[in-house]
């Protein structure tokens, strides 16, 4: 029955959530929007698996919208670079949607349920569009849809704390400036080359233009715009308030996937298009991205230590983790890009799990979760607390968790590039991560107050444990993640060495 749809699978993974989102927007029910979203995302996963099967046979799918050939029409491209991310995205969205219902029930008005899931699917569809698109202007549209949907979702947190409105407003202003910068860059690129398709752009740039200033200006505008959106260090200021005042389910989705998809596009733009100007690329990577990553790692971790609010602490630790990813991407070789992708996968799982567990605590505690409020939670809610502990250890990078695999590959990549200073800094920052995570553990298990354990909600701890178990499984059996990351790096780096 699905056969007739399978050819259009690349388009459907994006279009299906967008279509369904329009349908469920005005449903006044407490349960139906959720059920329909789950069914939609199961179909989404089915199509993603189909894409994986196709890719393992052919290695490359170019989907042309309306059968317009690529340089003229808009196209989606699926290849070794994004198939792994697509699969992770599909699975994680399904798990977090399963988790989100009980959280939304507690945090937002039930009359807003249909609208909340409508925005949720809108964000999912457009983020997936960012993963698949092969057209630089199309990317801008998806970027803005996802930003507007996430801003509205963040503003839903206003029922809990009115600061959510300010956080959403700041995200709107800063995000829109970033997106507009990106469009200016696209304008320069289009003015010079007359094309928006990424593959065609490479060809045009390589043939006709060498070292023209307009191109460099355009490239810089595009990169700065994307850096704002991906929350790379000096332009990250919208992220911590946005993550910490959003409803917990929303922070889970955004922290795990939103910045990751944009980081993916960022690296693809760098290594697939801008690669034809190696001098410009290495200038940007060595003198902009590399120092900024180191600063992000250090400052993000230090600020996280001084946070009292747990969600804010996690948000600042996200800044540091994005720093690890961009540090890996700034290395310009196969090992660096591969380790960056490994950390994209692993960090999505870790931060997703942490935000899920903390979100559940926020509901149980019925207030913002601060360090003090966690007293004795380790005994009171053992199932969720234990999951939080494992995710936290993985964040630090202990063996047997997937965080360790990330750190291992990052160290290897840095070592082969002989960047001993960065190795030291990453090691110090990992040690500092122990400090802020220990503060949480201390409150949860070693405070004087003891509680009897209370009943926990299986609908909530089940998805948390699915993520936690996957963290352990990928810590011991890391082959799938390594394979996907190597595949991505193979595709991206092969262009660089030729």
């Amino acid at each position: 029955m699905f056969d007739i749809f399978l050819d259009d699978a690349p388009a459907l993974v994006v279009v299906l959530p967008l279509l369904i989102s329009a349908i469920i927007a005005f449903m006044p029910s407490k349960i139906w929007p959720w059920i329909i979203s789950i069914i939609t995302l199961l179909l989404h996963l089915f199509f993603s698996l189909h894409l994986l099967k196709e890719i393992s046979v052919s290695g490359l799918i170019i989907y042309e919208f309306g059968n317009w050939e690529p340089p003229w029409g808009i196209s989606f491209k699926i290849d070794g670079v994004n198939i792994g991310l697509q699969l992770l995205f599909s699975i994680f969205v399904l798990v977090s949607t399963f988790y989100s219902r009980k959280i939304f029930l507690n945090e937002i008005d039930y009359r807003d349920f249909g609208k909340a899931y409508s925005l949720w699917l809108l964000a999912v569809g457009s983020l997936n569009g960012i993963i698949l698109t092969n057209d630089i202007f199309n990317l801008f549209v998806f970027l803005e849809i996802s930003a507007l949907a996430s801003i509205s979702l963040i503003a839903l947190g206003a029922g809990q704390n009115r600061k959510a409105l300010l956080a959403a407003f700041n995200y709107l202003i800063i995000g829109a400036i970033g997106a507009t910068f990106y469009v200016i860059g696209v304008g320069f690129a289009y003015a010079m080359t007359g094309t928006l398709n990424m593959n065609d752009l490479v060809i045009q740039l390589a043939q006709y233009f060498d070292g023209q200033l307009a191109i460099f200006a355009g490239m810089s505008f595009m990169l700065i715009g994307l850096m704002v959106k991906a929350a790379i260090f000096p332009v990250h200021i919208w992220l911590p308030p946005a993550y910490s005042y959003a409803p917990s389910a929303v922070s889970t989705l955004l922290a795990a996937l939103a910045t990751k998809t944009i980081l993916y596009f960022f690296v693809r733009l760098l290594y697939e298009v801008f690669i034809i100007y190696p001098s410009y690329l290495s200038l940007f990577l060595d003198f902009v991205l590399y120092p900024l990553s180191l600063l992000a790692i250090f400052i993000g971790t230090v600020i996280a230590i001084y946070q009292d609010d747990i969600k804010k602490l996690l948000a600042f630790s996200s800044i540091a983790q994005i720093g690890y990813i961009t540090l890996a991407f700034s290395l310009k070789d196969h090992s660096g890009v591969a380790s960056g992708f490994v950390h994209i996968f692993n960090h999505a799982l870790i931060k997703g799990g942490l935000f899920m567990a903390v979100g559940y605590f926020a509901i149980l505690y019925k207030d913002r979760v601060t360090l003090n409020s966690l007293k004795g939670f380790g005994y009171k809610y053992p199932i969720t607390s234990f999951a939080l502990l494992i995710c936290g250890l993985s964040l630090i990078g202990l063996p047997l968790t997937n965080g360790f695999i990330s750190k291992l590959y990052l160290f290897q990549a840095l070592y082969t590039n002989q960047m001993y200073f960065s190795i030291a800094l990453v090691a110090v920052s990992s040690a500092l991560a122990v400090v802020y995570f220990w503060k949480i553990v201390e409150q949860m298990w070693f405070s004087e107050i003891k509680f009897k354990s209370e009943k926990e909600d299986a609908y909530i701890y089940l998805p948390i444990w699915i993520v936690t178990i996957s963290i352990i499984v990928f810590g011991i059996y890391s082959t799938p993640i390594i394979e996907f990351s190597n595949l991505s790096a193979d595709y991206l780096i092969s262009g660089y060495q030729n």
Partner: protein
Amino acid sequence: MVGGLIIIITSQNYLKKVVGLAIFQTAVFVFFVSLAKVLDGTAPILTKMANAYSNPLPHVLILTAIVVGVATSALGLALVLQIYKNYETIEEKEIESLELKSDK
């Protein structure tokens, strides 16, 4: 373009920031449309008079971008309205002092 950015950065009023953003975006749209002009070109309609046509594609792109810009402004204004309902002010400094008080 720069004017819009300056408004966003310097003004203390949230409403003015949204307007500044709209000006900034409109400036970029005009930049795009100006790219499309071909010297001696006319509108891209087949006639015997024309010897060159202007490029219609940037106009189409900007049509999309205008829609995005309208949505952004609308959401921004809706947020400003909600902020006013919750804080009874939309001046950045007053809200900051309100928050400082509530933290204590």
